[in-house]
């Protein structure tokens, strides 16, 4: 066998092996994305109930709470970046990180100090590699975040938010996450988590009049209990959306990798065939040439 042909055969084999892997990853991501979207849907009732209760609170009380009050001067802003733990998902991680870089730059131009909170190994690596500082980080659950993870993150963010600015507290908190629009579009988004912007525009969409609630034990206590829950829920929804987006991006990336492998295999098969054909042609012309030489001798 010719040297050229052996090289091509080897390449085909290696591409075939890669194709098997990317194909398997595509299928795994496809099955997980269904589950991830399911969980987004399942978290809906909780969000709905919480939003409704808060709308009622907002409507009937003028209580001020630290989490909804705008501070007059913003010195330090916190940014929570939600990226994935793993790569192999096309532009997913890089677009979230790019979005966060833009936000950080914007905040700095406004003269604010920026405190970074990271979620996902990829974001952590990005910051570590560049020797940049961050306040806190979490990782290990980007595929399937649980409510407890969201709670851990939200508790930390709220704790830091409530701290005095001189002690390292923050005046506002932003989240950079990826919104899952559909299987083919996911877009990085920035959301200001606290101070909370008064509950969704949904209240106008529901003309139903909220009853005059009695608050148990009192308005302040209810507000105190509900607002952190709302923040946690926001974080949870962002985590779930990001997880679904990551898996969808991964599925797409692996699909195109598999397609590319197919194209490569095709090209190399053609080249290998050509090499084989060339070898045969050469052998024939050698034989014919040899026979001719013998005949003329």
């Amino acid at each position: 066998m010719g040297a050229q042909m052996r090289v091509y055969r080897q390449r085909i084999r290696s591409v075939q092996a890669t194709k098997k892997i990317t194909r398997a990853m595509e299928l795994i991501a496809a099955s997980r994305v269904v589950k991830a979207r399911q969980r987004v849907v399942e978290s809906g009732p909780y969000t709905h109930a919480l939003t409704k209760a808060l709308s009622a609170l907002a409507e009937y009380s003028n209580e001020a709470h630290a989490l909804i009050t705008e501070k007059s001067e913003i010195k330090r802003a916190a940014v929570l970046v939600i990226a994935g733990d793993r790569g192999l998902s096309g532009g997913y991680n890089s677009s979230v990180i790019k979005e966060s870089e833009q936000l950080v730059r914007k905040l700095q131009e406004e003269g604010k100090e920026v405190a970074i909170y990271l979620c996902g190994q990829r974001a952590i690596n990005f910051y570590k590699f560049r020797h940049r500082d961050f306040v806190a980080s979490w990782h290990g659950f980007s595929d399937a975040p649980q409510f407890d993870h969201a709670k851990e993150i939200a508790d930390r963010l709220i704790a830091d938010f409530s701290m005095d600015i001189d002690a390292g507290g923050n005046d506002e908190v932003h989240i950079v996450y990826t919104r899952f629009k559909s299987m083919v579009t996911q877009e990085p988004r920035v959301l200001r988590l606290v101070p909370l912007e008064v509950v969704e525009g949904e209240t106008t969409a529901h003309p139903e009049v909220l009853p005059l609630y009695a608050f148990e034990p009192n308005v302040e206590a209810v507000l105190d209990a509900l607002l952190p829950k709302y923040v946690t829920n926001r974080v949870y929804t962002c985590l779930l959306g990001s997880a679904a987006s990551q898996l969808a991006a991964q599925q797409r990336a692996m699909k195109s990798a598999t397609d590319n492998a197919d194209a490569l295999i095709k090209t190399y098969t053609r080249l290998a065939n050509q090499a084989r054909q060339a070898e045969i042609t050469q052998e024939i012309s050698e034989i014919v040439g040899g026979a001719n030489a013998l005949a003329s001798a």
Partner: protein
Amino acid sequence: MSELQVELVAADRRVWVGAAKMVRCRTSSGELGVMPGHTPMLGILVNGELIIHQADGAKQAATIDSGFLSVEHDRVTIVADHVDVQG
């Protein structure tokens, strides 16, 4: 007699929906029972047991951690971070 429409919701799923005669739970200021016709309210729940007396007479018990309860027009929504359903 009218019935309560009860919805029990955890952070990551809807746990139970149905009709009930009474809901018993623990608020931060003590045990609370909600029956049809209750005045609209929003209450904070502390962790403890929650019992739903279903319309068909059966009892549905669950353990919840901190959450809240809203009552309006005989519609009760119980929301908690974690819900453990028994039996």
